[in-house]
């Protein structure tokens, strides 16, 4: 049956309500099992030896002493993970990142691993492994890495995307360009031009749960992997490929996940745990320490961005240009490309040009972090937009409204927009009471907009109706923040039954077809589409069974509010059959009733948000305090509004941390100096005010209920909104994120001293 994903417009019964989530009780009683909460009989403890050098050739690894230590059951190096990637460059990078092959490319890069009977023995074994390094010059700063004399991280990299093929290798892996019109001409029409350079430091997703897995490989080549991940099907594919297994022989079960935000979309420890288990012949549990999470998982890019925007006196932007340099870690990526696409996406521009450079540095391999690459670009652009408004003498909200993209606008990344929500979020922000709240001394207000694409993707869902009429829903998209509640609401809505009768679970990779991972704000968007489709397939069967029970044609049976209803004059006396009644009879009418769906959810619909915040700055110390914060964002349709609010608030809080205090600090030796929550300072409860939210609902035309993804966009505006507020409070333009107190105080002093 062909599924029609178009928005139909309907009145909702379940969708839009706020019931308690199905996994809630387990999570408040300590019963829910996360990555490290699972154990297998006879399991060993795995631990990883990591490079203390930012850049070094590995001459030799001697594991003999470690192997002889009593209690050590396996020691592995890159030799135990042979290259089976068959020319797939991206997979080779993943393999090399899991276990360094010829060079250690960053402080924390895995070089060997052990499995032993207990943690103490494993720790001792690591100390007995002798690695002979030849230390090489390193580079950790994105701008330094682009200089021609910079240490070369990979001499096989020649910059892609240049007019002429380069003859010398470079740390710049790719140049990309977007835009339209003629910026040179556009700047010619401008009365005011703002030109500035910005920098943002590297940040980490900062999920509270470290990476953890338990791997068990049997001698017959089958394996089980229990792991915290945003995508167990993707992990299965990657692990199977790297270990030379058939995917179907590796069953991956996703644990409850203690936060991901993009950071649990890559494999790091999992192939290592499987390789250890394969060698030891026993299950291996591998849990990263917090130090390892910071040093050796996947933070976001550090960036350096130049912006130039010109406008006429009347407030019309005539041209906009950006050059964006994003660090990728030591492996090729496309992070600047995304920044270049999103930078000016909020605006209607006749002349726009963005250029991105992907830059290799001796830092961990960059991974996605909530709307990856967009917050940094938005920080630079929205700061410059604010400054331009000021120069023209226009209110910053009015200036943005005047230049906001709308339906029919050619986006800065290429295509023409359909119906979009940037205008409405700006209008809502303009009339929000926050805008009129009084400001005290040393307080400033700032606002900014943000854009994110949102994804859909491959999705597979099973809906089974029990004999008692209750419904089990098995989905393959990992629930990172309440999607089992929203999907249960959707199933209840479509079937016309109560939410309480639906129980949603995340199924393992052997129980369901492939699902993309929970990224790109796709969890609820795509799985709700698949759930609707599965429910409709089940309804078709329910109607057939009702038709059998009544002995009439299925064409005369319709589904209304959880009941089969007979239509037509002849059947006027048949009344209704409830889902429960049909389910009870199912054994005699053809067996179990189920609905299945496999689809590609596409047309996720782009997402916009506008944030407003008030910041107080202590002019004597540069300390900041967030006084008020408001998020306005389009959700298409909020399936479970409380969890939508939660996404808005959580993204804002992460953005606040990024804007004010979070950063990777590298020493001159290329080693990370703050790999812990003490000095990598994520916001604590007393740092934040209540975060006000306003959900707009502009239906997505490509989803039956109008749903859009909501998870990521909320982290895009905060960096800029806070920078604008600090600028208004302290009278200085901040161009370096995070705006830590020393940076703010230095800027204030520079302004005072001239």
């Amino acid at each position, binding site marked *: 049956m062909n599924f029609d994903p178009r928005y139909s417009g309907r009145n909702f019964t379940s969708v839009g309500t706020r019931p308690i989530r199905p996994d809630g009780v387990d999570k408040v009683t300590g019963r829910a099992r996360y990555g490290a909460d699972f154990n297998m009989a006879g399991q060993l403890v795995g631990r990883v030896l990591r490079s203390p050098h930012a850049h070094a050739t590995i001459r030799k690894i001697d594991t003999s002493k470690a192997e002889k230590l009593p209690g050590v059951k396996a020691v592995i190096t890159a030799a135990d993970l042979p290259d089976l990637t068959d020319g797939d460059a991206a997979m080779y990078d993943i393999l090399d990142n899991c276990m360094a092959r010829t060079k250690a490319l960053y402080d924390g890069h895995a070089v060997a691993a052990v499995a032993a009977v207990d943690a103490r023995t494993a720790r001792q074994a690591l100390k007995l492994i002798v690695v002979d390094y030849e230390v090489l010059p390193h580079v950790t700063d994105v701008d330094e890495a682009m200089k021609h004399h910079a240490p070369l991280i990979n001499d096989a990299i020649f910059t892609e995307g240049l007019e002429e093929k380069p003859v010398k290798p470079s740390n710049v892996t*790719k140049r990309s*360009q977007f835009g339209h019109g003629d910026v040179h001409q556009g700047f010619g029409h401008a009365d005011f031009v703002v030109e500035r350079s910005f920098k943002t430091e590297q940040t980490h997703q900062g999920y509270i749960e470290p990476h953890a897995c338990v791997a068990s490989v049997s001698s017959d080549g089958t394996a089980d992997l229990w792991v915290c991940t945003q995508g167990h099907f993707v992990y299965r594919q990657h692990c199977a490929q790297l270990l030379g297994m058939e995917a179907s022989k590796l069953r991956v079960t996703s644990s409850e996940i203690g936060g991901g935000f993009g950071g649990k979309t890559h494999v790091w420890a999992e192939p290592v745990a499987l390789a250890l288990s394969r060698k030891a012949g026993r299950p291996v549990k591998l849990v990263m320490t917090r130090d390892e999470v910071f040093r050796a998982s996947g933070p976001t890019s550090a960036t350096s961005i130049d912006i130039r925007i010109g406008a006429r006196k009347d407030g019309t932007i005539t041209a906009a240009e950006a050059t964006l340099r994003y660090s990728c870690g030591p492996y090729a990526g496309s992070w600047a490309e995304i920044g270049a696409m999103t930078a000016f996406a909020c605006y209607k521009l006749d002349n726009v040009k963005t250029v991105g450079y992907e830059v290799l540095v001796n830092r961990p391999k960059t991974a996605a972090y909530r709307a990856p690459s967009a917050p940094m670009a938005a920080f630079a652009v929205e700061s410059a937009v604010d400054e331009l408004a000021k120069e023209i003498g226009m209110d910053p909200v009015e200036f943005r409204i005047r230049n906001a993209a709308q339906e029919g606008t050619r986006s800065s990344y290429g*295509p023409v927009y359909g119906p979009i929500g940037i205008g409405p979020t700006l209008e809502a922000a303009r009339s929000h009471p926050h805008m009129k709240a009084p400001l005290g001394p040393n307080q400033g207000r700032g606002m900014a907009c943000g854009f994110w694409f949102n994804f859909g993707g491959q999705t597979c869902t099973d809906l089974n109706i029990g004999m008692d009429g209750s419904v089990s829903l098995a989905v393959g998209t990992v629930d990172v923040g309440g999607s089992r509640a929203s999907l249960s609401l959707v199933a209840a809505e479509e079937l016309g039954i109560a939410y309480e009768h639906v129980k949603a679970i995340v199924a393992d990779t052997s129980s369901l077809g492939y699902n993309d991972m929970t*990224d790109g704000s796709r969890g609820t968007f795509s799985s709700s589409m698949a759930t609707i489709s599965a429910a409709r397939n089940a309804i078709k069967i329910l109607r057939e069974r009702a038709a059998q029970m009544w002995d009439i044609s299925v064409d005369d049976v319709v589904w209304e509010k959880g009941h089969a209803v007979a239509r037509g004059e002849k059947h006027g006396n048949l009344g209704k059959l409830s889902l429960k009644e049909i389910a009870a009879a199912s054994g005699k009418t053809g067996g179990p009733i189920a609905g299945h769906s496999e689809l*590609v959810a596409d047309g996720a619909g782009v997402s916009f948000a506008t944030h407003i915040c008030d910041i107080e700055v202590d002019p004597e110390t540069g300390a900041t305090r967030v006084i008020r914060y408001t998020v306005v964002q389009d959700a298409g349709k909020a399936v479970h509004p409380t969890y939508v609010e939660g996404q808005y608030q959580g993204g804002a809080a992460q953005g606040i941390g990024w804007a004010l205090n979070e950063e990777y600090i590298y020493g001159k030796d290329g080693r990370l100096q703050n790999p812990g929550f003490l000095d990598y300072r994520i916001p604590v409860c007393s740092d934040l005010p209540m975060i006000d939210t306003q959900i707009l609902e502009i239906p997505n035309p490509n989803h039956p209920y109008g749903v859009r993804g909501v998870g990521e966009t909320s982290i895009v505006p905060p960096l800029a909104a806070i920078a604008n507020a600090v600028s208004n409070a302290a009278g200085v333009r901040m161009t370096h994120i995070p705006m830590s107190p020393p940076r703010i105080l230095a800027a204030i002093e520079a302004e005072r001293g001239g």
Partner: protein
Amino acid sequence: MVEVTLWGALGQLAGGQSKVEVEAKDIRELFRKLAEQYPAFEPLIDRGIAVAIDGTIYRDTWSKELPQGAEIFLMPRLAGG
């Protein structure tokens, strides 16, 4: 025949053109024809290309039809968080 707009990097591989004409009824055929006409595209198609049809971005629906006169825009396939 549909007109397809290429993004920067793709345009360079097509000899500096920003738009190309292709005879294709859906995304699958579009990618096949593009790979035939421009063999240099193949690794990029393998890596992932998204297609925006009248502003809606399709990353995976290769069966999606390409309506006559629609604006068809090729974009890099992105990662999310």
